[in-house]
């Protein structure tokens, strides 16, 4: 057998993580409302399926965009030939304006600083290629999106050093944690090139506070490093506190061009995509926004390896230029996400399960620590397997997101119908009742708001009951 590259034979593509394994199990036995009602319900996929009707109705009213035409004339040839990595100007303009609109027009984006990429996956990798050498590092707050292990590290050779966040303060980034992470990198002889945050956060479903953002900006300014803000979920911030983009923070500090902190200005980069806000992951629409011309220039050339199909650029240019559509979409999207999240949260409460209070994203960060056999990741895996194989829900275990505390799970709510969500919640409730025999109070399961020691003793008690007559090893 001949030699392939090290990249081909190692496993830093991260695909052996449980995050992906859950998907695989789902693929083998996928739930279907009609044909496979016993199948696994996919709650591990952060998709936004709530507003397709709005897009479809727009399409029906705008046949030109749909049919490769402009004013009734075919532009198929023009589009088919267009491979300029600067992108279709109308599309970039529309995208820049959309990004601004999502931020309540508090900041504006210059289309000439926007680089189009094949999804945020490509945007993040490209930024790493531009900002760091192999062996250098970026600091990331945990828990973080499992795909970063592949996107940021695999082909680039860049390292991730975690900034440990805990439930003690709702997983917010603290200065201590930041400093510790930086020191850890130095101990490992890794040169830190920047910090990368996801805001709103995946998997937490929360937006970063102004304090956190300012603290981060101070930190990168002090250390002279980059700040990458992946704002892919910016359009999903459905309730207060409202989303604050890092660009707003910079604007507030008057970090524009020559005014005092231009170097810092050049070191802050935003990643965006239409996969979450518009629910179009298949179309591969990502973007890098940077104030540094050299980054824009290098990233633009690199985008050659993953340009956005001109067919798609054209469609979306038309869509996003329609301000009536974008205004309506943004507000309707918020409304539906808010309702759906509420449904999930209250359903979980009925099962005695609480969540981190979230205001954004397509998922909840769910606290199942009280359901663990022990405060360990082994116990988390055990619980996860039960949930996948017995309860038949694919949710994402916190360990796959590098969470430092066992017992947290990411549960998605926007990628299914309401009925399916209801069913999922029923299954979960039934599972908790059966396994943990938590007595119902006033028709609801008692919401467990115990402090940690009481929770531990409850857990012991609960498991003593359940393990007497059941094997803790799941059936499959």
């Amino acid at each position, binding site marked *: 057998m001949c030699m392939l*590259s090290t990249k081909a034979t190692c496993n830093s593509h991260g695909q052996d993580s449980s995050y992906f394994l859950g998907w695989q199990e789902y693929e083998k036995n996928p739930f279907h409302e009609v044909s496979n009602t016993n199948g696994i319900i996919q709650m591990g996929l952060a998709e936004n399926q709530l507003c397709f009707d709005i897009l479809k109705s727009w399409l029906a009213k705008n046949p030109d965009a749909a049919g490769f035409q402009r004013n009734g004339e075919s532009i198929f040839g023009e589009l088919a030939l267009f491979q*300029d990595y600067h992108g279709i100007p109308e599309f970039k303009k529309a995208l820049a304006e959309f990004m601004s609109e999502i931020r309540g027009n508090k900041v504006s984006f210059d289309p000439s600083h926007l680089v189009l990429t094949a999804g945020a996956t490509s945007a993040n990798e490209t930024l790493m290629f531009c900002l760091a050498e192999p062996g250098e590092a970026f600091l990331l707050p945990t828990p973080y999106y499992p795909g970063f292990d592949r996107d940021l590290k695999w082909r680039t050779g860049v390292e991730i050093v975690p900034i440990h966040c805990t439930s003690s303060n709702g997983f917010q980034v603290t200065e201590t944690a930041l400093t510790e992470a930086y020191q850890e990198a130095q101990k490992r002889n890794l040169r830190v090139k920047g910090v990368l945050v996801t805001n709103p956060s995946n998997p937490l479903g929360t937006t970063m506070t102004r304090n956190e953002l300012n603290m981060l900006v101070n930190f990168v300014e002090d250390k002279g490093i980059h700040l990458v803000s992946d704002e892919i979920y910016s359009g999903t911030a459905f309730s207060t506190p409202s989303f604050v983009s890092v660009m707003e923070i910079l604007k507030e500090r008057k970090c524009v061009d020559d005014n005092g902190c231009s170097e810092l200005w050049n070191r802050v980069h935003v990643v965006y995509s239409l996969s979450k806000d518009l*629910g179009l992951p298949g*179309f*591969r629409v990502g973007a890098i926004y940077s104030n540094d011309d050299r980054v824009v220039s290098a990233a633009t050339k690199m985008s050659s390896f993953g340009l956005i199909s001109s067919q798609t650029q054209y469609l979306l240019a038309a869509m996003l230029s329609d301000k009536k559509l974008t205004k309506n979409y943004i507000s309707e999207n918020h409304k539906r996400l808010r309702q759906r999240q509420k449904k999930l949260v209250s359903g979980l409460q009925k099962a005695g399960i609480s969540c981190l209070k979230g205001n954004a994203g397509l998922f909840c960060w769910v606290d199942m620590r009280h359901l663990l056999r022990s405060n360990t990741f082994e116990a988390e895996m055990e619980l996860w397997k039960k949930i996948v194989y017995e309860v038949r829900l694919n949710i994402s275990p916190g360990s796959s997101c590098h969470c430092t505390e066992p017992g947290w799970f990411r549960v998605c709510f926007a990628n299914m119908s309401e009925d399916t969500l209801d069913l999922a919640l029923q299954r979960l409730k039934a599972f908790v009742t059966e396994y943990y025999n938590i007595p119902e109070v006033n028709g609801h399961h008692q919401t467990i708001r115990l402090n940690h020691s009481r929770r531990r003793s409850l857990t012991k008690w609960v498991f003593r009951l359940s393990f007497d007559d059941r094997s803790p090893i799941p059936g499959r």
Partner: protein
Amino acid sequence: MGFTLSNQQQLLSKIATGTGDSENTPYFDGWKAFDSDPYHPTTNPQGVIQMGLAENQLSFDLIQEWVLKNPEASICTAQGAKEFKDTAIFQDYHGLPEFRNAVANFMGKVRGNRVTFNPDRIVMSGGATGANEMIAFCLADPGEAFLVPVPYYPAFDRDLRWRTGVQLLPVACESSNNFKITRAALEDAYEKAQKANIRVKGLLITNPSNPLGTILDRETLKSLVTFINEKNIHLVCDEIYAATVFTQPRFISIAEILEEEDVVCNRDLVHIVYSLSKDMGFPGFRVGIVYSYNDAVVNCARKMSSFGLVSTQTQRLIASMLSDNEFVDRFIVESAKRLEARHTRLTEGLEEQGTTCLKSNGGLFVWMDLHKHLKEQTFEAEMALWRTIIYEVKLNVSPGVSFHCPQPGWFRVCFANMDDQTMDVALERIRNFVLQDKEAAVVAMKKKKNCWQSKKLSLSFNNYRRFDEVNMSPHSPIPQSPLVRAT
């Protein structure tokens, strides 16, 4: 904080601040000239005609007709809208099954159904650009090398090397035998690498060739297979121009060679790169394919394809179009016919003026021989001639040096990215230039002949060294700029 400029520069990677993107080249003059003064038959008849862009624009009418007749292929029309949601949320890197099936079907048809392709071995990528980079990432580590016969597509320097750290080492091919890839040249290149302590991981060929427009014959293909098997290195065949072969001898794919009885080959070593950018004329849709006979490579490439998946909107359109067998059969035949007609128009027009091209039967360009017009047989003279052609003759053609051609005087001239009238204007301009240059050329020829005789041996050595300079210098000329006018 007072950061000096060098500190600031250190904040970006070497990849970002270096010149491995291969675009910082004097060649850009051609593109700038075209961009600032583009030809238009009515509004700018004196403008620069773009003949440096290998696009296939000859058969759009067929495709447009198909698109109009098949509204359900677009997910945005009334007929196709019911598929909008499922298509929009589908992000599986395996790609839509119907897309892979249709592409496999198309690839087979382009090869006259002499071979079939397994859809499960088809991996998507961001165009052939993405495919070539991806295959390099899969097969080689930084510092390792691929052998590439010269002349070759300039952007390989970027695609295969830039972010991968992989090296490209030339395999010398001479105009004296029509740039044939000889066993001796392969061995020579391999040995050179060994001596320099560079590990060779594979051989990359483009067949049909860019910039030559020629196809590899059966014996050559077999000898390549023998070579890579003996050395236990990979063979990457970029067959992006497969359907552009318009006349005999017919195109032979590496896939066919593998099926031959007397061929012994470890299939794990063979990989095909493909795209719809040239055969169909869809560079904007970014449909690149890696087809590997090696399961581990398919596996790895599939994961890497996450960085450059084909938009599902496009996958669906292509799936629909390329599974329409009647349309595909008709398209392949008609496209080849039109390419042949255009090729003939250009080559005959050039012949009339005493300008020869390498005999070719594929591609979207001809490899034109202008060494008679060089003041001296050097690359400097070639660049000087090139500047004349751009600024005075007003044609953007691509100088051979940018393709790492070992001998000066060759130019790649594209013919499929314009209409007949524009082609005629271009020919007229060349005719005028040739006439003007004839006298001077005759005189220069007499002088050159004497020089040529005595300098022949040392010239080839100088050329090779010149190639190294061109290759390794910060100003490697790269003509294939992606800048394209949209209208």
